């Protein structure tokens, strides 16, 4: 089948403002938007800018706004999208070129929540024990691939770029509810600040956008409750 892609282009070295460009490519229903973007870059317009790596939804490189919704281009099939598809860069992060956005603000928010296990006890000679139930408590938030689909779908983030955003909260959740971690309070203090969880207005865009199926809004709510009742 023939599919049309309407892509938002912008090269700051040449263009004064972004513009739309249409491309037509031959594709199968089972093809992904990423396949079509490759066809364009390889055979039609070598200047088209986008990121990608694993091409099956694990590495988190190719989140973009596809038909008005944040998705990974490698998991968005034409069978589900139809034959006319609009593609734009993620919202809320500076556009560097075409579909490539500056990820540094996103990773800075991630780093701000101390996204690593903190446990100051001398570790045992073998593994620390953790029951399957304790392990299950934070399973959902370990799935995050840092693609930014959630954070850049959040209206609260669009209007306040200092908001740490859903992805950072998800990664804090992953440690706050890990029975082996001892720094829940430090993280909850960070998330209780002006740019933390209270910016969340429970809009659920993040949950809809997550390509890993993480219950993002639920995780944020759990963090809010932990702050309010001062217990994990």
């Amino acid at each position: 089948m023939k599919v049309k892609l309407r892509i938002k282009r912008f090269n700051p070295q040449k263009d004064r403002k972004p513009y739309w460009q249409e491309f037509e490519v031959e594709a199968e229903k089972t093809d992904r938007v990423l396949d079509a973007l490759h066809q364009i870059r390889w055979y039609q317009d070598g200047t088209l800018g986008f990121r990608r790596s694993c091409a099956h939804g694990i590495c988190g490189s190719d989140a973009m706004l596809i038909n008005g919704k944040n998705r990974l281009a490698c998991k968005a099939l034409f069978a589900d999208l139809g034959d006319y598809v609009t593609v734009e860069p993620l919202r809320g992060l500076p556009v560097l070129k075409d579909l490539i956005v500056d990820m540094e603000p996103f990773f800075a928010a991630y780093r701000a929540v101390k996204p690593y296990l903190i446990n100051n006890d001398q570790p045992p000679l073998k593994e620390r024990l953790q029951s399957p139930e304790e392990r299950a408590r934070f399973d959902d938030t370990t799935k995050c691939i840092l693609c930014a689909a959630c954070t850049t779908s959040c209206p609260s983030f669009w209007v306040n770029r200092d908001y740490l955003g859903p992805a950072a909260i998800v990664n804090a959740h992953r440690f706050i509810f890990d029975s082996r971690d001892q720094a829940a309070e430090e993280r909850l203090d960070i998330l209780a600040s002006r740019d933390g969880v209270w910016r969340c207005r429970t809009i659920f865009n993040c949950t809809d956008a997550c390509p890993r199926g993480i219950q993002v809004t639920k995780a944020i709510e759990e963090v809010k409750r932990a702050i309010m009742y001062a217990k994990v």
Partner: protein
Amino acid sequence: MKYHTYDAVVVGAGGAGLRAAIELTDVASVAVVTKLYPTRSHTGAAQGGVCAALGNTEEDHWEWHMFDTVKGGDYLVDQDAAEVMCREAIDEIYELEHMGLPFNRTPEGLIDQRRFGGHTRNFGEGPVRRACYAADRTGHMILQTMYQQSVKHDVHFYNEFHVFDLILSEDGRAAGVVAYELATGEIHIFHAKAVLFATGGFGRAFRVTSNAQTLTGDGMAVVYRRGIPLEDMEFYQFHPTGMYKMGILLSEAARGEGAILRNGLGERFMERYAPTLLDLAPRDMVTRAIYQEIREGRGAEGKDYVYLDLRHLGKQVIDEKLPDITDFVRTYFHIDPAKDLVPIQPTAHYAMGGIPTDIDGRVVVDEKNTPLPGLYAAGETACVSVHGANRLGTNSLLDILVFGRRAGAHMAKFVKENDLPPLPKDAGERVQAMLDSLLKANGHESVAKIRTDLQRDMMDLAGVYRTAEGLTKMQGILGELRERYQHIGLQDRGSLFNAELVDAVELGFLLDCSEALVSSALAREESRGGHYREDFPKRDDQRFLSHTLAYKRDNGQIELRYKPVVITRFQPKERKY
């Protein structure tokens, strides 16, 4: 050109690179230079598990693990290296757990373990539970944990900097690397006492592959062009269960949990090929069995694929232990593995060969294992060799952890004891010349078309089955592709995220890796592990119990030399499962 000076530079931010950087960063100044963002590396795509003889669910010993690794590698494994890996695996897994990796747990709270291909109890008696895992996203958890630790240790990253050249000083030491900044097009010289390449494999040389778009053999090709040999490049692993046509990996963990391979007639054909281990035989054997079934007309619907049958595992096991591969199958095939048979075919997966190193990650450049001072490699880029002629499942994650750490530790010692080597005046010139030429390239050939032809022919002529005739033909084709590569044309003349230029450079890297593979494979007139010669179907220890070293000479010719295999505990035997 911009200049940076560090004690050590790590190229690549997958598991091996980050593990080394974490080891180094508190004791030396380190830059991690990566063409991606750190969590984008392909370590994250590894699924099934990482083996260590913890014995958490049944009796196990590292000596059994070592034996399986040696036998699985068809006795081409260097046994001193395998011993180090399997012994140190145990503490490495505990260390990972202490870093926070969320392993699945037993009811007692220990790290849970499951079965995996080729891993056995008591030297081959039957399958053993040795693979520590986190659902079917073990690689994702390892990569995330490594990145988390990098944040904790404040590792210094240069993200989206693509290394195009290695700098050697006049006295023959590694002196740094030359990188191309994707966001600006600028050249950066990283001057350092020690350099580690941890850039992964080159699966993109083949048509059907489990590898990321970005796995183009960069590190291997960069050092190869500087006169350093590549070891055992003919040993390339095709994983039995890639998704039909797409190549996306469906973990061996599926078979570890009990899934079965079926041909078009519905038969469990592995009964005929590996009566003891059945579907959990090593990958090279299962892959050839699938090809054989297809050749004999028993493929599914008469085509070039067979089925992975997970239906009897039940929805709960599938959802809890194999959630990611279930998601892939649902997303891309629109079928449900709890109800439907999954179409699979072998997919190009892993390079057993690579840059030769010793057990401390030091790059060694000849038959006598002479190290090149300051140069290191680890992970799939390297060849220690712990995988020999065929890697066992889970051992790649173990390899990156154990040898990433060991390389980092050795580099820490090296940079303390050595001064900064002098930087050659022309350090960035070769890269500058290459960029100048690419930015002017206006020939009629397309990079994408050359790459597609390369991938198609490598798959057919240098893939699972090989012959002298096919490999010779492939050598000719590589010559033609190389000629066409001289006449490529690019549209993007810009300096901002010029992916077209990067694609062209990466194609050059793929051509180098492919040439080394094909020449090494043509010369090895035997069948061993992942290298199967239809014209020489038997293993020949008399002539070929040795590692290949392929050198690229200045005139473009490839010279092959051989070095002995290190044999300590286990004498070569016939390999049956």
